[in-house]
């Protein structure tokens, strides 16, 4: 059974049909790339799946259950966690504090007006673990807002990992990064998928990355699904080539 299924999903904004007729299924453990030119509807797709706003058409099923008009908090409870195209972290806090509040949220501690030393230790150990996984340990005590763009992206991934996602949505995780940061992020995405088995959808413009790590690729153009397949199929698809060459010109 597929983990995520979209049946003929669409989203209108007034007169603008941002997405229409989107039907796709994502298997558990899959690493799926979503590609397409600017304005194709990739972020809108993430917004629908994560409950930022509901679809105007169609239905979404997650883990066999309908989630079509779920709120963000309800969908997070089911294990759907996302990052944003523009990094959303706690800028004036340190990296440690960023991860700490995420861990406390994941542990269901948010309402506690005091904390015992024992629980604090558990939280802090988990923070260290997350930092190791995303490889930001050396910068734990730096203020997040003072980090490079790439490191801030990494911090956001650390934050969402705290919630042990079943389905992780990454919106352009490597956007605006230098070569080294891009390499680090690509490696991180691959490790999270292969080592931790996290099912992932990621939006990416860099074709080398997409072809390099994605199991399958969904191509959107102008709100519609243009193609779907593995790297070889997509690379050879004339409609994809046309769309990309057309937009590149």
């Amino acid at each position: 059974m597929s983990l995520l299924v979209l049946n003929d999903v669409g989203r209108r904004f007034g007169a603008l049909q941002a997405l229409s007729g989107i039907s796709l299924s994502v298997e558990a453990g899959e690493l799926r790339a979503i590609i397409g030119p600017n304005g194709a509807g990739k972020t809108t797709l993430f917004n629908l799946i994560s409950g930022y706003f509901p679809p105007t058409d169609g239905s979404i099923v997650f883990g066999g259950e309908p989630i079509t008009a779920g709120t963000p908090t309800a969908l997070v409870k089911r294990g759907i966690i996302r990052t944003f195209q523009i990094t959303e972290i706690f800028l004036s806090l340190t990296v440690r504090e960023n991860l700490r509040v995420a861990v406390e949220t994941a542990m269901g501690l948010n309402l506690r007006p005091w904390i015992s030393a024992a629980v604090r230790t558990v939280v802090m150990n988990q923070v260290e673990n997350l930092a190791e996984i995303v490889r930001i340990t050396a910068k734990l005590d730096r203020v997040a807002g003072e980090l490079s763009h790439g490191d801030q992206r990494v911090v956001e991934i650390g934050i969402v990992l705290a919630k042990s996602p079943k389905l992780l949505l990454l919106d352009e995780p490597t956007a605006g990064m230098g070569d080294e940061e891009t390499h680090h992020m690509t490696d991180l995405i691959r490790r999270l998928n292969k080592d931790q088995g996290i099912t992932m959808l990621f939006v990416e413009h860099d074709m080398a990355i997409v072809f390099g790590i994605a199991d399958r690729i969904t191509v959107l153009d102008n709100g519609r699904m243009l193609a779907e397949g593995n790297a070889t199929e997509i690379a050879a698809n004339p409609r994809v080539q046309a769309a990309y060459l057309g937009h590149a010109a």
Partner: protein
Amino acid sequence: MSTDLATETARTAPQARTGMSRRTIGNVVLGVVLLTVPLWLPLVGGYTDLASRVLIYALAAMGLNLLLGFTGGLSFGHAAYFGLGAYGVGLMLKYETHSLFLALGVGTLVGGLAATLLGPIAVRRRGIYFSMITIAIGQMFYFIAIRWNTLTGGYDGLSGFARPKFAGPGHLLSMGPTGMYYLVLAAFAIAALLLWIVLNAPLGHAFVAIRENHKRLTFLGVSTQRYIAISFAISGFIAALAGGLNALLDGFASPNLLNYSMSGDFLIIAVLGGMRNFYGPLAGAVIFVLVRDYVSSVTDNWMSVIGLVFVVSVIFFPMGVLGFFNRKSGS
């Protein structure tokens, strides 16, 4: 990273970082200074009631600042909870009880419960709409106090109550300015300690995270409105306690205590002192009350002087007075 007095970094909820011992020293120094106020204040030309006023305003502004500086919610209506605390204490002492602590408890409860019940309405909106709702709710109580003449004394305010006497050895002891000061100091210390604990706990971390990025927190599954409402309620209880103490200090409750201009005073105090700073409101209250006391003895136009101080300080110390010192002593 922290100064002697400014134990809180400019950015976040208090947390043991590097300056643990300096922080402890800072708290001890502050404690000694506050405990000895009745001894040294007259030497520098002050009087004890003035120090009580400073601490009462600091307490109210500290409560407000949990919402403002640590949760990111700009309330223009906290005078309502301050005022409810004041009227609650006044009415209790006038009609119901001779117990100071019962009166203070009821006053705090009335104001705090009002904030607990009304906060959830305001937090349904964010930003400017949130602020507008807090004003509207606050003014409601102001107009009720003015209209309900028979109970509240209307425009004239509520009088006819005083600090109860205490059972002493063989006779009743009245509570003078010094006793009053130590009562206020005790309330301030307890409230500050509780706030400190909350800010160091997951609840406080959630407040700060909402201030920083409520969208990120929402997409971690946190219902942020609920937490803002909790912050609102706690800050309302503290403001109400401060208001109750204010009524005890004056033996009087004026409807102006409920008015939005009073809310504005608390905001000025918090911002002036440094709203990202745990003790910022205390520093702000010292400046505010001293300027008001000194300038109003020279001219009736003290508010414009406060305004000038405020504008200058916001321009030159955008992080407040303590924020400025924090930065100086930082890297």
